[in-house]
């Protein structure tokens, strides 16, 4: 039991990052029913932008906390720009095409972006500066909790609450919900559906960028490949929770993060990713539409 709390906090941290990425998947899926396979790459590009900005700022002697803030803002700007452009280039010309086409276009985009970053930067692991000042807390049992973990969990909670309020109360949020319900009807009542779809990509990409900078600063190194496995895990989380549902994605991410943390802590660390996928397969067998997903009636 001595490191239960440590594992629990580790699981929450992982879950938070998965949640930030999973929200992008689930929002895009909710609106255009597309698995945006390149979303993991957006997260990776966010982390790289964060690294470049933080690297420049450290060299010019900026103080620690302001670097974190500026790095996050820049990562959000560029990731959102990438998300917007990807939608325009790879998905928009494919509206109305058979289901497989945009999916394959997304896989192509993902391969392209990975190799683009690899060629422009490097294929090696790059050290990421520690942007969140590290304090360790110790409780009575001897578990260690770091300040970075707390910051990540708090930042994610804030983002999730912010997103929920945004979707619930703003005009754009209302338009997004309407478009997700029925795109054609939304168009008929005068909603600019193209704009709503772009906005969805921009918001999802921004959240992924926040996750990218936070986790990169926590782990301390990044390379061009980090987006793939994080993207797969986040998508797993979104599917677990029931894809298309925003609270579902948050819940699924927490379940996945905690499962992974405890399984690696108590069972074996070699099979970390295997547990994630096994959990996915098991949940989908017993609840094919995820934990919070609703069975959709099929229209003939």
């Amino acid at each position: 039991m001595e490191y239960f709390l440590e594992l629990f906090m580790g699981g929450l941290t992982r879950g938070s990052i998965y949640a930030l990425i999973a929200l992008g998947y689930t929002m895009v899926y909710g609106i255009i029913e597309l698995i945006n396979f390149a979303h993991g790459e957006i997260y990776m590009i966010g982390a790289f932008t964060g690294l470049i900005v933080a690297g420049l700022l450290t060299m010019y002697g900026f103080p620690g906390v302001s670097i974190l803030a500026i790095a996050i803002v820049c990562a959000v700007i560029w990731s959102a720009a990438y998300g917007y452009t990807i939608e325009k280039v790879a998905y928009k010309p494919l509206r109305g095409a058979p289901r497989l086409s945009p999916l394959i276009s997304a896989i192509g985009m993902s391969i392209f972006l990975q190799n683009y970053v690899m060629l422009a930067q490097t294929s090696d692991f790059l050290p990421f500066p520690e942007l969140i000042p590290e304090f360790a807390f110790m409780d009575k049992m001897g578990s260690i909790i770091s300040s970075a973990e707390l910051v990540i969990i708090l930042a994610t909670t804030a983002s999730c609450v912010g997103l929920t309020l945004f979707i619930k109360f703003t005009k754009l949020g209302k338009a997004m919900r309407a478009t997700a319900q029925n795109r054609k009807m939304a168009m008929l009542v005068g909603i600019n559906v193209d704009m709503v779809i772009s906005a969805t990509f921009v918001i999802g990409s921004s959240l992924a960028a926040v996750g990218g900078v936070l986790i990169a600063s926590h782990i301390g190194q990044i390379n061009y490949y980090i987006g793939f496995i994080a993207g797969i895990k986040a998508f797993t989380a979104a599917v677990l929770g029931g894809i298309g549902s925003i609270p579902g994605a948050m819940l699924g991410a927490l379940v996945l993060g905690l499962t992974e943390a405890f399984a690696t802590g108590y069972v074996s660390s070699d099979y970390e990713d295997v547990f994630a996928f096994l959990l996915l397969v098991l949940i989908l067998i017993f609840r094919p539409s995820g934990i919070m997903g609703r069975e959709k009636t099929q229209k003939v």
Partner: protein
Amino acid sequence: MNNSSNTLNQGFLKFFFTAGCDSFAHAMKKSLLAALWFVFLTFPIMVIRVNTIEKTVVWHWERIGYIAVSIFFGSFVWRWLLARKELKKDESRNETGLEVLLTKVQSNAGLKYAALGLIGLIAVLFPQVVDLYQTNIMISCLVYIVLGLGLNIVVGLAGLLDLGYVAFYAIGAYAYALCNMHWDIGFWYMLPVGAILGAILGILLGFPVLRLRGDYLAIVTLGFGEIIRLILENWGDVTMGPSGISSIARPGLFGVKLGVIASTEYMYYIMIGLLIFTIFSVNRLQNSRIGRAWLALREDEIACQAMGIDKVKTKLMAFALGATWAGMAGVVFAAKTTFINPASFTFWESAIILSIVVIGGMGSIRGVIAGAIILVLLPEYLRDFAEFRMLLFGAIMVLVMVFRPQGLISAKRKIYAYTATNTASAGNE
């Protein structure tokens, strides 16, 4: 319809420069904006490289110029292609030159047999004419064609998106490597065993995912492929872990010892044989009862069930038959390279096989062959582009999907023509 082709033919240059825009000036402005946007977009990642340990920054300002110029001209091409696609949409026939040529050859019996004979002759003479290196490349191309044809059953015909196809390939390869290492079992015994193992695994995977549709299926199969790879990597006692298994036996020829060159040629002819067998079987399958059930399943699952097709059986058959060829290809792969490790069976391998199927043309045998030749041979012969290989790969996948969603060679259904001669002669009597 006439109108649109007239616009296309009359002022090609005018159409090219103003496609989708009111005037040339408007098009210029659009291209300029696109160039500016991409310069902004690629600025941090393309231009700046920092090293936070040594505290150095390298600026690549020249890259901004390359991007601006290529995007400026590229955006004209992009708009032109999009506008052309839009115009041609309502024209019923939209065939590439390659397709027209293929139809012409196929409709003429003499030409068809001459072409087949020529291909056969080239295939037989190929290893005698070229060197060992070329033969080796050709063997891997043939392996990819077989893999592509196998995946084509699952994705192209049945419409089930399988992103973990490489798992079956890995199973075949590891089964041969391990049996060969421990019990010295030969290639020819393992080829059918690999096929059967693939089929069994296909059914095992098929069962739990039967209820899932489209995207859920994709992610579960992807997870399955990753599980298999991770097990191969971590179960060191059995699979030798990441270091892999080496010195796997090459296929035997009735106890005759073969040198390196002879055994490569032998391998090549085995692959040709396997390919002919695959093409023959897949061709027969897709025109059979089950093949038509797959097509129905792909088009509309509910309507397909309403027609009385057993959905469970149809899906399982697709998974099992697709995996059969992956299992065989795996055995061949292990025998060819004589060394395997988990790194050969990553998700990207699945993605490459999938792109062979999709770029070639889903559901079309000739398309899959064309796709494999383009995607496997082209990068090999363009060695200078080696590091851009995957970049081009991704870009091609996106471009083909945007401009030609049905692939290079679209599938044609076999149509059974009913000749009225019998009834006519009956009427005469």
